[in-house]
């Protein structure tokens, strides 16, 4: 097999993890939970993340303002203005309302592409890893081509050529995240497939379906999921980045990246308010990163 440079990045010494899981049997997940519960930083970060997600879901209950309602008289009010505690944006919309409502689209555009890519990329990777041979080469060599695009360029190319909008953003980001997920899934599956217990199961007469579902999938899903969670933070930054460029969510919808773009000229008038939406992108992406790190450590998976 010809190697590409990025492969070395993703070398996965995961059979250890698979072996630990196999050895501990049912107790493995209990173990992971215990270790996660002891990790105070990760628990704290997860709570912040839950708060961010809840604030987006419960947005109407957190603010009396309509995130779309403009006011010519209340433009670019500073933080602490009566009635608008986070101030207002360039056309007088309440910033707090737009921040909490903005979480809905930003989180959607961050999480959904990774989930879609996980389904497509994970399936392709597991199939490639399990089947080996020609199937493996066909899938992996096609993925190599997608890898030739720096991820953000691929997303920009798809959005830029097909046109802006939420649907194209999600499509573009999904395509962007398929290659790394295929690689990880293929690498993990190839390793698990060659382990003794899979061989033993095959020798004792279990069929392909059972083998895949029970022995392979049970052991590869953990590492693949952990890797996918680490992509969410990148996805949130990229999705907001696309909106920031004007390629993603279209105005007047509230979305953090788009808000950042709209408020950019206001930097000369009210720099603090203009920078606020970015804090949310940063916080959310950081929380996803730290959560993923924490889960990875608890599961002892190295990526």
């Amino acid at each position, binding site marked *: 097999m*010809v*190697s*590409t*440079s*990025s492969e*070395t*990045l993703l*070398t996965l010494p995961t059979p250890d993890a698979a072996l630990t899981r196999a050895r501990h049997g049912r107790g493995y997940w209990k173990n992971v939970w215990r270790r996660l519960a002891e990790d105070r930083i990760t628990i704290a970060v997860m709570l912040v993340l839950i708060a961010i997600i809840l604030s987006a879901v419960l947005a109407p209950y957190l603010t009396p303002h309509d995130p779309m309602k403009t006011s010519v008289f209340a433009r670019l009010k500073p933080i602490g203005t009566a009635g608008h505690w986070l101030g207002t944006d360039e056309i007088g919309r309440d910033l707090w309302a737009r921040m909490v409502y903005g979480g809905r689209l930003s989180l959607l555009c961050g999480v959904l592409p990774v989930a879609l890519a996980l389904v497509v990329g994970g399936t392709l990777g597991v199939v490639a890893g399990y089947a080996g041979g020609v199937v493996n080469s066909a899938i992996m*060599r*096609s993925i*190599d*081509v*997608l890898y*030739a*695009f*720096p*991820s*953000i*360029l691929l997303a*920009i*190319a*798809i959005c*830029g*050529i*097909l*046109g802006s909008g939420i649907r194209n953003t999600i499509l573009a980001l999904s395509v962007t995240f398929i290659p790394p997920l295929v690689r990880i899934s293929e690498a993990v599956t190839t390793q698990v497939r060659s382990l003794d217990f899979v061989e033993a199961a095959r020798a004792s007469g279990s069929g392909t379906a059972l083998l895949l579902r029970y022995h392979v999938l049970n052991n590869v899903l953990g590492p693949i999921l952990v890797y996918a969670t680490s992509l969410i*933070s990148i996805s949130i*930054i990229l999705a*907001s*980045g696309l909106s*920031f*460029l*004007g*390629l993603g969510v279209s105005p007047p919808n509230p979305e953090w*990246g788009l808000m*950042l773009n709209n408020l*950019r000229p206001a*930097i*000369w008038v009210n*720099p*603090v308010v*203009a*920078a606020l*939406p*970015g804090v949310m*992108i*940063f916080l959310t*992406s*950081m929380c996803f*990163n*730290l959560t993923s*790190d924490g889960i990875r450590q608890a599961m002892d998976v*190295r990526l």
Partner: protein
Amino acid sequence: MLAYTLRRLLYGVPILLGVSVIVFALIQFAPGDAASLLIPPEAPKEVVDQVRAKLGLDKPVYVQYVLWLGRLVRGDLGVSIVTNMPVASELSNALGNTLMLAIPAALLGFTLGVGLGALAAFHRGTVLDRLFSATAIAGVSLPHYWVGIVLVAMFAVVFNALPAQGMGAPGFPRTWAQIRHLILPVITLSLIPMGVVSRLVRANVLEILSHEFVGSLRAKGLFRRRVLRHIMKNAAPSALALMGLQFGYLLAGSILVETVFNWPGSGGLLNLAIFRRDIPVLSGTIVTIAAIFVVINIAVDVLQALIDPRIRR
């Protein structure tokens, strides 16, 4: 070694072909073809046919692809619909400006990344480690376009110390006035490579430190500096691979930073092309950056093999 290099180069050919197919396919999916952008909708059918024939749009898709690819190979990226300038010349100017940001940003990010990552690993568990690891994770989680805005707000708006936009006088930066324009965008761009590289280097060095050979080297009475050299040499290949990828991301990802700073680079060109629906500029830029990325990756692979002979298979 030569055989390995040749093999990697040859492997680049199908990849580049694949890249060209994907970009061409994307253009085909684009709403409206090049002709519809050039002619008013009320134009008579003969004129439309004439323009379409002139652009080669009346030929079957695969013929169009082969012709397009033939021009690409000869370095002809077409002519911009908006400015009527050859895309290649517009792009080479813009790419030069982008490199002016990307190279210093890469140097800064990689140096800091390797330094912080190695220091954190050698002082594992100390306050220093926590501080550097926190810096690294912030570096990967920060939306760098936002950092650019914050830096502009601080240094241009509040302190009025550095220019907020543009690159000043064009050309290679020689004067302080030109270098001043570089400072904020370069710092902004260097954050992600700094974070990513330092995380990898820390993990790598920790892994290597756990090997027995490090203990033997120390037991042998080798100077710390020499032990360090052994460790860094082992950590180098995967770090290099990552740097290659990151440099590619710098070229492509600069679109966001260039938008923030109004920098006339390839990202700015791409952004402009998207909104003017200038497909030749768009496809030319994308193909060129992807091709550069492929070449960088091959170069990194060869470099890796030079450092670590185990890679030459």
